[in-house]
């Protein structure tokens, strides 16, 4: 069994990768993908802390991760619907080009 | 004696693994499982292609293949040789890496799904506590493979086929999973062997306690079959590869061995989903009548599997293909409400299990059946036979 900090470092790395992508990529879908990656990194942390925690039989980490997955699914659905709506309006999915408030 | 025969493969594997040093056993056991699954089901694939072609022929008053070998039994061999010796063509504009990976991404998840299916008493590779969820989770991987195949070919027909395929698979996954959830609700477990165990025994000593003999089980099984047909892209839901419209859908630009892999994946998916249907509704490897319980369990499973395959071939030989809008309407407006009602009926069935008065079973059956039948009639009337929605009338064509 690898030590806890291995999981924490992996999670931090995933979070940083997701953050870098969300900050640098211009495509709206990729920004969303970066956010999904960050959420997943958080999930990994939940599970790792649950497994290495004092009372794993309480299942808190697992349950929290499941709720988080559910919320991520909702977020992805709404986010992608927004991207499609934006595309219909502006005919582009590049976030830099969608900077006007007027339609 | 019969006990040994029933557990033949389990004992055989235990003996083979026992012959090897302890360090190897951890690796050897799953390797043997995987090898057995691939060998048996690839063989079944070969047999099924022949049976399907023969059966379809007979359903349409034709002979079917009968040229290679006696009665054409060597036809799969000829087909295989032809596939393997064909030129492997990759379009110049294709994304070569994704194009190459797509068939692999198609077959691997389906083979993984076999790991949790119980083929006989104790004959299951891995007994996950959440086996059913595992099955559906890996099954989801094939959708991505369809997209990979369709997009990487750089062909508008293949992209259209892939979009149709993904839309269809997502839509029909909902009724598929929900009809399985009804079983989970009653059996109280996600593990497939314990779902089979929950169907053990016989009512009054002769009627098997399979879920298909309950009102929600019968409806659930039919809904499951329809959704499974759509999931495995078979006729009448074969729109993704409807050859008269989009040639072969996402398979257009595949030839030779890669095409054979897709073909194999399609059939393996069909077997897997049939095996799941058997496990959930038809009592898995259990014998249908108590006096035949001495027949080895895997033979019962095989017989049921062949029966399911025959049913799919029969459906394919009978039904015409749906239109895309009909397909989507059917999934979302007809099957989804029905499967939700079915879930409620299953919950009622489970809740009234404690009823003990005389005729309680018949009352429950009639109640559940009536609710389902009323829903079915109302839905089909509202969707198909209500004024303005009935069969199309042709003013000038007649």
């Amino acid at each position, binding site marked *: 069994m690898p030590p806890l900090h291995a999981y924490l470092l992996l999670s931090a790395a995933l979070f940083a990768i997701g953050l870098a992508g969300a900050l640098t990529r211009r*495509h709206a879908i990729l920004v969303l993908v970066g956010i999904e990656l960050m959420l997943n990194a958080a999930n990994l942390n939940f599970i790792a802390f649950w497994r290495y925690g004092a009372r794993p039989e309480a299942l808190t980490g697992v349950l929290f991760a499941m709720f988080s997955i559910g919320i991520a699914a909702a977020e*992805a659905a709404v986010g992608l619907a927004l991207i499609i709506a934006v595309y219909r309006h502006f005919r582009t999915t590049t976030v830099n080009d969608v900077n006007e408030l007027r339609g | 004696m019969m006990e040994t025969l029933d557990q033949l493969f389990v004992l055989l594997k235990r003996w083979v693994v026992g012959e090897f040093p302890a360090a190897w056993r951890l690796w050897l056991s799953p390797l043997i499982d995987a090898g057995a699954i691939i060998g048996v089901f690839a063989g079944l694939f070969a047999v099924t292609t022949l049976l399907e072609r023969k059966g379809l022929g007979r359903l349409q008053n034709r002979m079917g293949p009968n040229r290679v070998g006696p009665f054409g039994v060597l036809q799969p061999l000829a087909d295989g040789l032809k596939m393997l010796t064909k030129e492997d063509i990759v379009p110049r504009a294709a994304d070569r890496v994704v194009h190459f990976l797509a068939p692999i991404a198609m077959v691997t998840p389906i083979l993984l799904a076999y790991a949790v299916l119980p083929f006989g008493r104790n004959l299951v590779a891995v007994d996950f506590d959440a086996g059913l969820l595992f099955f559906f989770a890996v099954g989801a991987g094939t959708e991505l493979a369809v997209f990979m195949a369709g997009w990487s070919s750089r062909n508008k027909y293949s992209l259209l086929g892939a979009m149709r395929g993904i839309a269809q698979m997502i839509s029909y996954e909902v009724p598929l999973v929900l009809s399985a959830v009804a079983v989970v609700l009653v059996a109280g477990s996600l593990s497939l062997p314990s779902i089979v165990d929950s169907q053990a025994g016989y009512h009054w000593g002769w009627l098997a306690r399979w879920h298909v003999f309950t009102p929600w089980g019968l409806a659930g099984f039919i809904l499951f079959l329809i959704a499974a047909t759509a999931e495995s892209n078979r006729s009448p839901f074969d729109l993704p590869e409807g050859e008269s419209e989009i040639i072969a859908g996402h398979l257009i630009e595949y030839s030779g061995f890669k095409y054979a892999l897709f073909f194999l994946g399609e059939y393996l998916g069909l077997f897997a989903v049939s095996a799941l249907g058997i496990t959930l509704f038809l009592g898995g490897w259990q014998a249908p009548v108590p006096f035949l319980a001495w027949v080895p369990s895997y033979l019962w499973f095989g017989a049921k599997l062949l029966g399911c395959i025959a049913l799919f071939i029969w459906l394919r030989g009978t039904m015409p293909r749906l239109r895309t809008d009909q397909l989507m309407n059917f999934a979302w407006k007809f099957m989804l409400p029905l499967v939700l009602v079915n879930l409620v009926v299953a919950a009622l069935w489970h809740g009234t299990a404690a009823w003990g008065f005389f005729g309680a079973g018949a009352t429950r059956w009639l109640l559940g059946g009536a609710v389902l039948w009323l829903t079915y009639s109302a839905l089909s009337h509202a969707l198909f036979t209500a004024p303005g929605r009935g069969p199309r009338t042709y003013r000038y064509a007649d």
Partner: protein
Amino acid sequence: METAFYVLAAVTVAGAVAAMALPRLVHCTLCLAVAFVGLAGHFLLLGAEFVSFAQVLVYVGAVAILVVFAMLLTRSADAPPAWVVSRPGLLGVGVAVLVFGCLAATVAGSGLAGREAPPAPEVTVKALGERLMAEYVVPLEVVGLLLTAALIGAVILALEDRAKGGT
């Protein structure tokens, strides 16, 4: 166990990096799916079977497919490959590296670093379900409500504006 962790970690990180760095959007999505599968493997390794399968079902089976559909509907799949080597881009990477450094330093500095796992607990689906139905029934209902709202919201957002005649 250790080897499995490192292999899975390599797959996950490679998938994530590729998902964020490849020029073609479709490749990004496919690599994202690989990263998700790697994460599911980690969950399995940690003994959270149910979460692992749910992860594959939701992320590979739903989110990745949703992304694919969004890509096809916005015609981004055929967009020319776009690399990001610009000043704001570098700035973003710098910020991310900084964040990673902070997190790593915190992890290394905390007392948790060397903690070993207690014996594996028995996690049955039944236990999970009982928790969800007893202690966590309110959050469960809220998530259900949220998902329904998200479903309806997504449909309304993506619905074509017929009344306006489309813009």
